[in-house]
């Protein structure tokens, strides 16, 4: 019997402003192609239509929103040099995604529940929604975004036009944390359950993910 040397990895990446209009399926396809381009010894599924063995580890992000803590799991046929893997991923990750880090996928991480921190930006003209959200009684509470927090999210918007657009259309928002357990819902659905609110009114930015096991 041959020894099973397969090894799972976790890529953390940014989904920048310019990438907010791709669907989750588009993103998955783009990431699988990235893996193929890297030339790494990717492990393929063994079914009728072999595909790279991958999984999206964060909750899928809706169209219209951004993130700097998306996690994508993939498997190689055997453990490789992490430096080489990092170099290959940095070279091939498609714009407008941004490489953050890569490492071995911690055991049990796929089932690990976490808490996602969202920065929610509200369009100019809808400022009353900030007040409305701040007064909501939700677990963890809602806090107004500080200037520093807004600026820290802005590093995502490398493109000059995008940064200008952000200034033009969005003048503030709030921070909100959500558990990713079985009851996970999108932040806009929790805060504004009575209305269907689209990205023309608000967009949310996933700032970070805190794992329950390490909290």
């Amino acid at each position, binding site marked *: 019997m041959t020894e099973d040397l397969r090894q799972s990895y976790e890529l953390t990446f940014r989904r920048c402003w310019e990438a907010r209009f791709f669907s989750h399926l588009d993103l998955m396809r783009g990431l*699988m192609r990235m893996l*193929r381009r890297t030339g790494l010894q990717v492990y393929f599924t063994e079914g009728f239509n072999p595909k790279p063995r991958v999984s999206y580890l964060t909750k899928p992000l809706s169209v219209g929103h951004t993130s700097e803590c998306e996690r994508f799991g993939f498997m190689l046929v055997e453990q490789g040099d992490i430096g080489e893997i990092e170099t290959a991923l940095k070279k091939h990750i*498609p714009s407008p995604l941004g490489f953050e880090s890569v490492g071995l996928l911690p055991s049990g991480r796929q089932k690990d529940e976490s808490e996602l921190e969202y920065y929610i930006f509200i369009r100019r003209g809808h400022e009353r929604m900030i007040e409305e959200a701040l007064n909501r009684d939700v677990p963890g509470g809602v806090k107004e975004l500080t200037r520093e927090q807004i600026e820290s999210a802005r590093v995502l918007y490398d493109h000059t036009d995008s940064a200008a657009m952000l200034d033009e259309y969005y003048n503030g928002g709030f921070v909100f944390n959500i558990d990713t357990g079985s009851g996970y819902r999108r932040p806009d659905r929790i805060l504004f359950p009575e209305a269907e609110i689209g990205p023309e009114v608000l967009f949310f930015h996933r700032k970070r993910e805190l794992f329950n096991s390490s909290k």
Partner: protein
Amino acid sequence: MDVLPRVRKPGRYVGGELNAERAEWDGARLRLALCFPEVYEIGMSNLGFSLLYHLLNGLDGVLCERVFAPWTDMESELAGNGMPLYTLESFRALSEFDVVGFSLSYEMTYTNVLTMLKLGGLECRAADRGRTWPLVIAGGGCACNPEPMSDFIDVFVIGEGEAFLEDMVDVIAAAKEAGTPKPELLEKLAGMKGLYVPSMYDVEKGAGRVVVKDAGRGLFPVERRYVEKMDEAPVPEKFIVPWVEAVHDRIQLEVFRGCVQGCRYCQAGMIYRPFRARSAGLLVKESKSLYGDMGCDEVSLLSFNAPDYPEMGRLLDGLLEHATPNSVSVSMPSSRIDTFSEDVGEKLRRVRGTGLTLAPEAGTQRLRDVINKRITDEEILDAVRHAIGAGWKKIKLYFMIGLPTETMEDVEGIASLVGRIMNVIREKKAAGRKGKALTLSVSNFVPKPHTPFQWDAMDTMESLLEKQKFLRGLIDTRRVKLDFHDVRTSFLEGVMSRGDRSLGRVIEEAWKLGCRFDGWTEQFSFRRWEEAFGAAGIEPGLYANRGMEPLGALPWSHIRTGVTDKYLFLEYRKSREGRTTESCLRGACTGCGLGCELKDK
């Protein structure tokens, strides 16, 4: 960008894909907007469009950007917010470019061309644009009968883009630099081989159709230009990898151009002659390189009938050596039955078997001889046996109804043949537990220009509907998936492909009435088209359902593809006598008029 959150599939309109070109706007000597009058997913699947985009950007000082037709919701948003239609690279309006080029590959996209021009900040009619830039150019398969669109286009490119690019770009760039007025530039372009400038010709009405005449400038006829040796033709080193899934989301390897089979109904088989193959070694090298740049999981061998490729065994071996360890599938879009072997089938299926498509086209031997589809029932059944033997699970069959000389017996022949194919599938126990193993796609024959059937009348809509109903009653739809093409769409396709210059009025009227994306069932409104024909005082049936005199001038007679009228007429006569013509690969040269590399085989 502010409108994007409100439209469906906003990813269609953002660009920024891997391998997209980003040339400097300010430094460019010529700026082209390359337009595809369909949605992004379809346009990005078109190999010719992608080839031109990358090759143009590879020319010194040339900037080329892409534009696709906005879906109706995006059109409303752009118009409602006073925003122009923009390119995906620099987000500039069409009116800011020197040249706006359209790829016309399907007649049902004509109204989208008008939408794009108008939204891009340009007048639709060439005469209304007058002396102002940009220059509006169009090419592609539909340009072999350019007349219906000639009111809107300044210059048509007749032939293969690669053969023109450098010459044409140089002339236009020089004119721009020298400040040459547009009419003078048009005159110069009209004198170049393969370029057709409608405004430089006279027209006259004869036998109920408008035909193009020489205006005494010595520009008649317009001869097609094409690449002579495929291995010497420029090929881009990379292609764009779309984020939004394209219809054909794969590496497309063009194995050869031109068809050797001579099917008499097939326009592409006639207008893309002669046969020109690329060498297997180059194709394998190109495939490996594109895989490294794109990461696609499928390679498609693009050609009319891939098994005709002389080096197929070597090509497949080379491709599979690389594809197998990377789990990349190799596919062929369509294969002639008599050339599909068990060996090829097995090799193709080895990596990842998708469905296999075979095209008998007609149900009886008599009618297959008329259309020069030289295959017997036994060969069809053998091909199915081979395919199933090689492990294929799903088979798709293409048929046509409304072919010249067709009778109800021929239609019944389709059902009878399908019954025998189902028996083979049952014998081989290929029918899966779930789903149907056989799909039957039945389209309506449109007699296209530059084919031996160009003089034939198209079957009427009533007759086609009757045949569809008859066939539906004969097919066991519990076991076979049966798809029919919409007869009204086919009828309009017939009118547009066989039309003359008068149809410009109809197209414009239909567009004003709201016709968009006419090839899409959910968008197509035959009522609006009827209204447009009524407003223009034109009876569409006269174009589609009336035969033409073989010796008379046709609306497309001024365009010469290289295949001679003599050859087309000879094939037409042979069809009526039920005589077939052998493939150029197997028989003697058929003398179509285009000397090719097979002539002295």
